[in-house]
């Protein structure tokens, strides 16, 4: 394997992803895709294309410079939306 030096935008996106992986302002958007640019949250949503387009307009940046992070929902159901039925667990 060869060493590869990231250019400026690659490095920025690399750092954005690392930051987003733990930043509370990102991780609060459970079950959504979160758009991040220069360590700022530009938006969150479920459709990536729409999210990135709107985030690029909001941030005044190229859409392909935006990092998108998946934030998992704390749920017992992998395939369902936000309304977890917890009745089964209640006594």
């Amino acid at each position: 394997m060869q060493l590869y030096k990231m250019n400026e935008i690659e490095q920025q996106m690399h750092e954005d992803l690392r930051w987003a992986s733990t930043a509370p302002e990102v991780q609060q958007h459970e079950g959504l895709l979160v758009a991040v640019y220069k360590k700022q949250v530009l938006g969150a949503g479920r459709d990536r294309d729409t999210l990135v387009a709107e985030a690029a307009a909001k941030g005044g940046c190229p859409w392909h410079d935006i990092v998108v992070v998946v934030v998992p929902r704390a749920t017992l159901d992998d395939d369902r939306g936000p309304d977890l039925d917890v009745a089964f667990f209640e006594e």
Partner: protein
Amino acid sequence: MIAGPTSTLLFSKNEPRVASSPPTTIPITWSIPQLKIGALSLPLARLIVGLEFRTTSLGRQTVPENCWLDTGAPISVIPFHVHGNRFLWKSAGIRGSWRGQPCDLGHIDVWLPTDQPPYLRGPISMLAKFARSDPPGDPVPVLLGLEFFLSHQAGVSLLTPPQPGAIVVP
């Protein structure tokens, strides 16, 4: 003597490597959101690995994506929302499916993060299912399956949670 299946041997071949190239260690981090149900608090853990993928975007060669380390996945999966119009990959001409969505088996170059930014190591080839559409429900990131570890003879070490683990690629 027990002969193993030929297909296993095909997927276990290593790529040529430079003998002097040191092993690359990729961090694995724990994501442990808590599900609270009344007085009960359940940890719902996932293992996160950051990789860089070859992109079609102008002005750059790589884009970063978080992956979930999925030891239940024989082959890595790249959901449509992740690769669509962004990843430069090559189809192997084989169809498959993932969570009910049609997929194309293909290869993509990936680079590994190092502890000496802004440097990466690579590229190495990842075999993956490239989904043609996204399944219903919450979005998921790239699922890093076991074929990656077989084909690159990569090791995994996990310490006591939530200490970071590591993937070591020789």
